[in-house]
Structure formats: structure tokens, C-alpha cells
């Protein structure tokens, strides 16, 4: 590789050809500020519109200033990142951005977590010399995401996520000049678009323009209502990320502290979505084996491959974009909904209370879960199986509001019966985890043999699309994995074109899986955080005494006492669902 030598702030730097000034500066400890720039190394996601101009630097011999994020280093280049010309320009540009931005920071939901606010603070902006007209847009509230476009700074990160990574295509820059903004088609609300609520736009928004719908107050009110039994479930990925909100290292597992905190908040029962994940494996695994054996016996009517259905963003995606393939995904509900369904039937019966008097709260790394629990098909007489889905970030707020010193909490265990889970369910939170969990169970059921080594390394990793073959005692089972909806689209198109011969495919809407969900603590562009969270989940799995879903004693008990058998009549009613064609056909008058 060719090396380039240059000088940045009087320091000599040697970098590989092709490196940007920004990257080169970093190697010698010079952190040039950025705003629109986003580079998630481990996922190979980049956003470099060079639009904010905050990273401009002076390059000797160049007429104007150069954006460090996209300017390639050249041999002998002399760069100054903070002389008076650069500083004045950077501050002026920042003042301009602030002049078209509301200054209600004190009550902004992004306060303290806003890249723009941080930058203004670091640059010491104390006045905005250039005041003038500000853009005003209607606030758009959907079941999961709020768009407060007045706060949009046109960094285009959300647009990149929605189009390039997720290929959902809901957001686009519209209008031009001062009027330009990122919006759905015809500036309609998100709930009139094909939005999957994956929340990746929220995950990368540097300001308060895109945030989640906040249900914390509803939870507080439910907890305060003596007539309600309030139970909570926590998704696998939450425990690997919540600690970040309290200053802990990314990848710190806080399962026990989280349980303590939830109890401290006043939940009557603290359960685990992991339990429902084990249940999902039972249902989805049975469905897989059923289809697989019929397929291998030459049944031409059976559809292959089977696709996982636990990710609500992914479900929204195929309902909108692949209405012709609604019969391929598993009909199993997601763990969140299975939990809600079991809680408001089996567990409510056990407690002897009416479902109306039970409130099920779920703590999710995900924003699409907010939409999922509001779906009509997951309600009984208008009463939803899951009442509120709150994000990891909202949970942190709840804990802080309850004056709980999170880091000083003791570690506690989940309540039973719906709090017991296996290692298989914990890894649901990482890409490849669901299919690995399913494989552990399916292998034993299919072959009748005990699985000695439960770790399937070939199914793990961060690669966008992974293909693996697992030997089911002589029968090769072909498995596909995709995370990020754009990659899901690629696999689906392969299937549609008859080019794929998978038996089972796992799809997660968010890059990295649930650990990278739209409801997780913000990574601010550091993708190593996602890797740490993933590692934490696999650590938790490895430490579990039981690592196969079908071995969960409480799951076995649930079938004995209540459900009968997997994919049986009752299961079908409570744990399965059907999908809707939500594409936008051309209807003619």
C-alpha cells in the first residue's frame, strides 16, 4: 500500500493513500469536529455528504477551506485545523446552523445527548450573530417515531439509513435551499408511509429531529394505579446496553441490576422476554421442522425457506415491500407478543385477575415494538396483549426519575414463572442468534441426538449476509442470515428469483440485530459499541446452565399445563399470527 506523508498542525503524519484528512488527523491525536459525518466502521456504513462544513480545515495552496471528512490526503499536504480563519469559519457555520434551529435545549428530549449541543458547547458559541427566519414544520407523531423537523440540520444521516442501508425509501430530502428538509413523500406523516419503524433514523439523528414516542409517563401512571397489576418483560439486548446510560463501559452486562431497578420502580412482576424467546423457538422450530420434513418428502406445496418473524421492523418491511411472499415467513408471533399473550391468559388466570386489570410493559431495544403492540390483531376486545413498549433509553429515564442509583444496585433475579430462560434465548439480541437458538433445538428434535457443541460460530459475526450449512447428522441444512433491511431485500429477491436454496433464514431489521436497535443508547457513530454488546450477549449465553430452549423447565411446564403441544390448536390461537398486504397498489377509480 502506498503511503502518503503530510503535515497537520505542524505534526508529520504518514497515512495510507486514500485516507482522509480527518482520519489522518486522528492518528496523531487531532480530533477535528464533525457533525453530518458518520462512519460505522464495523458495519461499513458511511454518510459523508460534506454538508455541515463543520470539519473544514485550511490546506496550504487551496483557495477555499476543505472539508476534512472527504478530502483525501496528498503527498506533502500542509493542513491547519485550528488557525483563526478555520476557527472563525467553523464557528460562523455553526452559528448559521443554530440560527435555523430552535433553542429550546432545556426541554428537548435530546438534551444532553445531542451532537449539535455538544459541538456548540465545545466551540464556545455564546451568541448567534446571524439571526433570521427559522423553518417551521408540522410535528409528525406516529405510533413509534416523532419527527420534529424544525430541529433537522440536513445531515442526511436518516436519509442514508432509510434508503441506502434499509432500502425502505420513506425519507428523502425534499424542496431545496433554505426550504429543504428530510421528509416522507408529499410531507405526509410517517404513519401514511411505508415506514417500518425500524428506528435506524432515530439511532443516527444527531439532534432532536427524530426521537421515539415516549411512553414513560404512561408507565408511571400505570404503576401508580392500585387496580392494575403491572408486569414487565425485558428484551435480551437491553441488558447489554442499559449500563451505557449510567456511564458503564459498553458491553457491561447489567441483567441483575436491571431487575433490581425494575423492582424498585414498582413493577409487580419482573419477567424476561427471553422466556418468550424460548417459546418462540418451540413454535418456530416446530414449524420449521414440519415444513422441512414435508419438503424433504417431496411435498410440492410447501414453501421453502422459512423466514424468522420475531423482528417487527422486518415484518412491516415484507408486508409493504414483498406482499407476494407473505406465505414464506414463519407465522410465529414475536417474543414480545408471545409474552403478552401468555401473560394475559395463562399468567392472568394463575393470578386470577382479568386481562383488563393487567398492564404488560415491555422494555425493548426497538421502536418498531411500539407499533407492533398496537396492531389490532394483538388485541382482545380492544385490550392489547402488550400495553406499552418502552425503549432502553426510556427505561434509563424512568430509573433516573425514580432517584435510583443504578450502579449501586444489587443484582436480583427475574420472577417466575415467566422470567426463566436459557442461553439460547439471550442471543436473540444479536444477528444470527435466533437461527442459532433454533438450530440447537431443531438439531436435537430432527436427529433425535444430543447436541454436544452448542456454539455455532459459523452463524455469528457482523457480515451483512451470511450463508452457512449445518450438518443435521448427514442432512445438510442451509441457513441464511441477513441484518439490515437492504440485505434482507437482497436475500428475498434471490428467493423470488429462485436463485436461493436455503432451508431457513434469519432476518433482523437493524444492523447488528437488536443490540443495534433504534431504542438503544445512542452510539454516536462508534460502531465498536455494537460489537461489545454482541460479545456481552454471547458471554451471558455461555454462562447459562441451560442453553437450549426446549430444555427450559418452565416452557415444558407451560406446554403441559396450558398450551398442549407446539403448533397445536391453542398455540396457533395465542402464539401465531397472519400477515397483511400493505403494499400500495394502484387503485383505479
Amino acid at each position, binding site marked *: 500500500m502506498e503511503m502518503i506523508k503530510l503535515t497537520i498542525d505542524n505534526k508529520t503524519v504518514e497515512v495510507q493513500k486514500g485516507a482522509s484528512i480527518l482520519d489522518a488527523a486522528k492518528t496523531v491525536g487531532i480530533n477535528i469536529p464533525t457533525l453530518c459525518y458518520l462512519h460505522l466502521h464495523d458495519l461499513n456504513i458511511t454518510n459523508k455528504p460534506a*454538508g455541515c*462544513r463543520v470539519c473544514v480545515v485550511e490546506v496550504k495552496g487551496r483557495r477555499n477551506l476543505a472539508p476534512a471528512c472527504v*478530502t483525501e490526503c496528498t503527498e506533502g499536504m500542509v493542513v491547519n485545523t485550528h488557525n483563526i480563519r478555520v476557527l472563525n469559519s467553523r464557528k460562523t457555520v455553526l452559528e448559521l446552523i443554530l440560527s435555523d434551529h430552535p433553542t429550546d435545549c432545556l426541554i428537548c428530549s435530546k438534551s444532553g445527548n445531542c451532537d449539535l449541543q455538544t459541538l456548540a458547547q465545545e466551540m464556545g458559541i455564546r451568541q448567534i450573530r*446571524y439571526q433570521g427566519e427559522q423553518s417551521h414544520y408540522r410535528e409528525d407523531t406516529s405510533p413509534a417515531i416523532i419527527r420534529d423537523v424544525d430541529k433537522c440540520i440536513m445531515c442526511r444521516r436518516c436519509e442514508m439509513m432509510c434508503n441506502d442501508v434499509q432500502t425502505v425509501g420513506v425519507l428523502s430530502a425534499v424542496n431545496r435551499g*433554505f426550504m429543504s428538509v428530510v421528509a416522507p413523500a408529499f410531507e405526509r406523516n410517517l404513519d401514511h408511509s411505508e415506514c417500518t419503524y425500524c428506528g435506524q433514523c432515530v439511532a443516527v439523528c444527531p439532534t432532536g429531529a427524530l426521537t421515539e414516542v415516549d411512553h414513560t409517563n404512561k408507565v408511571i401512571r400505570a404503576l401508580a394505579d392500585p387496580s392494575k397489576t403491572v408486569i414487565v418483560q425485558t428484551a435480551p439486548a437491553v441488558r447489554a446496553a442499559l449500563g451505557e446510560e449510567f456511564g458503564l463501559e459498553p458491553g457491561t452486562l447489567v441483567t441483575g441490576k436491571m431487575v433490581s431497578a425494575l423492582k424498585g420502580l414498582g413493577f409487580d412482576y419482573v419477567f424476561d422476554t427471553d422466556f418468550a424467546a424460548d417459546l418462540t423457538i418451540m413454535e418456530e422450530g416446530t414449524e420449521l421442522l414440519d415444513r422441512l420434513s414435508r419438503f424433504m418428502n417431496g411435498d410440492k406445496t410447501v414453501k421453502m425457506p422459512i423466514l424468522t418473524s420475531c423482528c417487527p421492523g422486518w415484518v412491516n418491511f415484507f408486508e409493504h415491500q414483498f406482499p407476494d411472499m407473505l406465505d414464506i415467513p414463519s407465522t410465529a408471533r414475536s417474543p414480545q407478543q408471545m409474552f403478552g399473550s401468555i401473560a394475559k391468559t395463562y399468567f392472568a388466570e394463575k393470578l386470577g385477575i382479568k386481562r383488563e386489570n393487567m398492564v404488560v410493559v415491555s422494555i425493548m431495544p426497538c421502536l418498531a415494538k411500539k407499533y407492533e403492540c398496537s396492531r389490532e390483531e394483538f388485541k382482545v376486545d380492544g385490550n392489547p396483549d402488550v400495553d406499552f413498549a418502552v425503549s432502553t433509553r426510556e427505561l434509563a429515564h424512568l430509573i433516573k426519575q425514580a432517584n435510583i442509583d443504578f450502579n449501586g444496585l444489587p443484582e436480583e433475579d427475574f420472577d417466575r414463572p415467566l422470567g426463566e430462560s436459557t442461553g439460547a434465548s439471550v442471543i436473540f439480541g444479536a444477528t444470527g442468534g435466533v437461527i442459532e437458538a433454533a438450530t440447537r433445538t431443531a438439531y436435537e428434535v430432527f436427529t433425535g441426538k444430543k447436541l454436544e457443541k452448542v456454539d455455532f460460530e459459523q452463524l455469528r459475526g457482523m457480515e451483512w449476509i451470511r450463508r452457512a450449512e449445518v450438518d443435521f447428522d448427514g442432512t445438510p441444512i442451509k441457513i441464511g442470515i441477513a441484518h439490515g433491511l437492504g440485505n434482507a431485500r437482497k436475500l428475498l429477491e434471490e428467493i423470488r428469483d429462485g436463485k436461493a436454496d436455503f432451508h431457513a433464514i434469519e432476518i433482523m431489521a437493524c444492523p447488528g440485530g437488536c443490540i443495534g436497535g433504534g431504542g438503544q443508547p445512542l452510539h454516536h457513530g462508534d460502531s465498536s459499541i455494537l460489537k461489545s454488546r454482541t460479545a456481552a450477549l454471547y458471554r451471558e449465553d455461555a454462562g447459562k446452565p441451560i442453553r437450549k430452549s426446549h430444555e427450559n423447565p418452565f416452557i415444558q411446564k407451560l406446554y403441559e399445563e396450558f398450551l398442549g403441544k407446539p403448533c397445536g390448536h391453542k398455540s396457533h390461537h395465542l402464539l401465531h399470527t397472519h400477515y397483511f398486504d400493505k403494499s400500495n397498489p394502484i387503485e383505479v377509480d
Partner: protein
Amino acid sequence: MAKFKIHLLVCGGTGCRASESEALFHNLKATISEKGLENEVQVITTGCFGFCEKGPIVKVMPDNTFYTQVTPADAIEIIEEHVIKGRKVQRLLYENPETKEKVVDSKKMGFYRKQLRIALRNCGFIDPENIDEYIGRDGYMALGKCLTELTPEQVIEIMKKSGLRGRGGGGFPAGLKWEITRASKADQKYVVCNADEGDPGAFMDRSILEGDPHSVIEAMAICGYCIDASKGLVYIRAEYPLAIERLKTAIKQAREYGLLGENVLGTGFSFDIELRYGAGAFVCGEETALIHSMEGLRGEPTVKPPFPSVSGYLGKPTNVNNVETFANVPVIINRGAEWFASIGTEKSRGTKVFALAGKINNVGLIEVPMGITLREVIYEIGGGIKDGKEFKAVQTGGPSGGCLTQRHLDTPIDYDNLIAAGSMMGSGGMIVMDEDDCMVSIAKFYLDFTVEESCGRCAPCRIGNKRLIEILEKICKGEGTMDDLDNLRNLSQVIKDTSLCGLGQTSPNPVLSTMENFYEEYIAHVMDKKCPSGQCKSLLQYIIDAENCVGCTACARNCPVNAIIGERKGVHVIDQAVCIKCGACMEKCKFNAVFIK
């Protein structure tokens, strides 16, 4: 084939068509057939003659008689008097404004005397819809020469030697660009002609496409040969329907002749051209934005490098030149690099086409050798300032350019001198202003344009220009402060320094150059709350002079908002609270009783 004794050339440019030159054309034809002269007199629609001020133009050949401001009704007289009786129609001849003499030969008119038409060589001379006429003027010979006698490297060498620089604004050497694109390796490359002329007040490229479309087609093919591209695209403004029609016709004819398509002139070279339409975005004149627009995207510019020569349309190496640049190419090949390089100045060879407009007597399209002075252009070609007013400034380079003043009048015009003087060549708009023009308002006018045309991608251009115009508006309203002037200057500098593309990097130029050259006007607005040119409405009052007012009521009757009170034969008064400052009263007063304070 009929052997015509007389050719009548009728200008079919947009300007003249707006003044009914089409009806004129039909009337001429009708009269000719009425008189049974079809076999002797030919009427031809040509491209723009340039002298738009006096359009529609009719030129009679071979007498070389130049008629101006011809109406459809004049057709009969031209045929009966000139064609049949051989008597020139005196009243339609151009009158020298100084000597009051009638001028017959256009070359003897001040407007044409100093011009040198290279890019416009065929405009107003041939029928742009007839490929034969183009061929008769050496058309496609340059392409033939390149394909049969010269290697691509040799052609590029000629182009480099000629010193031709891009006429679209930047002034990048065309030959060098071709060389770089040639050096980029790819399975497919593209030649793109930028015909998205969006500069307000500029219509050079349109006139070339309307008057001589084949010259552009030929040049694109030559470029294709040089850079190894088989496909050409013309990105043309949808607002140019006539140019589009002419270009389509020309492409069709060239295809029928086999001058476009497979195996051109039996040499094995293949090249064809498609049209892509712009849709009203000035920023698409920037080449990366143009390419995105051709790809069906929002026309937002992106950072260079990569340059289009390396990665352009659909990610392939793409050579983008504008219409005028291309129009020069065939002549350079035919007449040689030395010939071309002998015209103009050392660093700016050849000629430049300007759209001369504003407060000038001879509005029109002119082509002059580089190095000519502004004085020559304004006073000799342009015939001086309209209505005998005082010259104040000339704006070149459109919204990216600046204002030049009295002291720049003797500066030779070329790329570098204009930049040194705080303006730029731009695509060739040249707007003359007189004593009545307020320079703060002019800066505001251009900023208004930039704000509307900014794509919104980068913050300094999107928000900065908006803030600039807000400050200018404040100043024009008399609410400006000295701090505002400092802010204007700092903000302008930052926008130039930090914007992503050429639009933002140059958009503050009108502000900076008017501040540089007319600072006293800014001060007058800010300190004295006065607009010296009487243009800024908020800073002026219409007052009725009691001594002169006779009470005729003309002003009161014509006031659109009934702001004038007064009895018949009594002194009238304007209610300043109601007055909208439209100036109708002043216009209607026959007694000079209304004045501006």
C-alpha cells in the same frame, strides 16, 4: 433545383420570435408566392443575429441589406419595393444614433464592427434546420479530418495548443480535460454537453443551439473520438423549447446522413447523442449536480474529487463541456490551433460570447475577441447607455460575478483580469447599470436568486445566503446598522470559504464587489437612511410640491390606493401612511409637482 437570386434571412431566435418573426416569415413567403417569385427568392429562418434590441431582423442577400424591427405587416413592402423594384426600404434600415445616417451593411454598424464571430459563425447565416447548409459551410469536415487523418492524441494536442478554455464559467482548459478523460480507463465513457444555461440574463448557449446545432453535435462527436466515448448526452433546459426542437431535428438529420450512429464515415467510429432535460435548477450547471440530475436524482453537487473525468455519469468517466466551448471546436480543427491562439490574450485565447443587456442601447448577443475592453463593448458595440444616462456599473458572471465600475472600463476582458477585478467571466451575462440603479438592491437581487437556487445540501449556502439577504433587506428598509455591514463581510467570506460547490463559493461575490466599489451607497442606506438612486421604496417619500401643484387631480385619480387627498384646484397632499410608493402620481403629474425625498 431552383437557383435563387435573392435570399431573405429571417431571424428565428427566441427574442425575434417573441416579436412575431414567425408571422413575418409566413407573410414573406405568402407575398412571394403571390408575386410568383418562388423560384427566385428564398426565405430562410436562421438563428440569432445578435442584435436583439432591434429585432426582428431580416437580412437581404446578396444586397447585404440589414433590416431592423420588421413587423409582419412590412413583408409586402420588402417584397414589392426591395425584391421587385430593387429599392431599399429606408424606414426599416438601422439608423446610426449619432450621425442619424441610415446603415445598409450590418458590418458597418457599431454593433457589429468590433465583433468577431467564431462560435456564432453560422448564427444568422444558415438555416439551422438544414444540415446541407451546415455542410456547405465546412460542416462535419473537422470530424472527417479527425477520423481519417488524426489520432485522438493529435486532436487533443491541437485542442491544447489552441488554448481553448471552458466557456461555462470555470475556464478550465478544454484540451486538458479531454486528455484526463481519455486517460481514465473504462468500458464506457460519456461526452456531456452542458446546455443548462441558468444564469439570469444570459442566452448565449441557447442562441448557438437555435442557430447552429450541428456545430455542437460535430464537436461532441470529435470529443467522443478523442476520449473514446460512443455516447453523448446533451443536458438542456426544458425552458428552451425552440433549441430542443432544433437540436432534435439536427440529431435526426445527422443520423440520417450517418454522421451519428454506427461506423461514421466508414471509419469504424460510432457515436450517438441523446437529450436529457433540465427542469429549472441553476445549480445543475455545476457538473456533478448536472450528472446527478441526468441520473434522475436531485441535482445536488457532490465533492470533487472524484472529478467527472474519472467518475461521472453512472460512475463512468465523463467529459462535460458547455455549448459555447463545443461550438468553437470544429473551427479550431479546420483552421488550426495557431489561428485560434492568435486571437485573444495570452491566457485567454479566442473569443467570448456575451449577452449584453440592461441599461444599454444595443441589447443583444455579441461575440468579441478576448482582450477587448469593457469600454469598447459598452460604448461601441452597445451604443452607450440608454437615454443618455450616466454609466454606473457592469455586472459580469451573473450571480457568481461582481460589478465592475468606471475604473475597470479599460481593463481588457479575459478570465484572469475579471477575477482580479473582483468579478468573473461566468457564462457570459453582461448587464449594464446606470445612475438609477441602487447597488444594494442589485446585490439583493442576485442574492435572492442564489437563495432560491441553493440546493440546500451544505449549511453555509443554505442558511448563510438566507442570512445575507435578510441583512440586505434590512439595509434596504433603512434598518441596517454598521454592525450589519461587518457581519455581511464576515459572512460573505465564510460562505465563500466553506461552501461545497461553485454556487456557494461565489454567491457572495455580488455583495463583496458592491461593498468594495460602492461602499458609500451602503453607508448612505445605513447612516443617512437614504437610497441615493431612489430605488429602495422604504427609504423614499413621494411629496407634492405645493408651489407647483395646480390641483388638476390627475395624481389623485391615478393613485391605486387613494392616498392622495385634495380639492380640485387646491393643493394635493400624499398620505404617507397609505402610499405604496408606486410612483404613478409622479408619472402622471404634468406640472413636475411630485418629487422624491
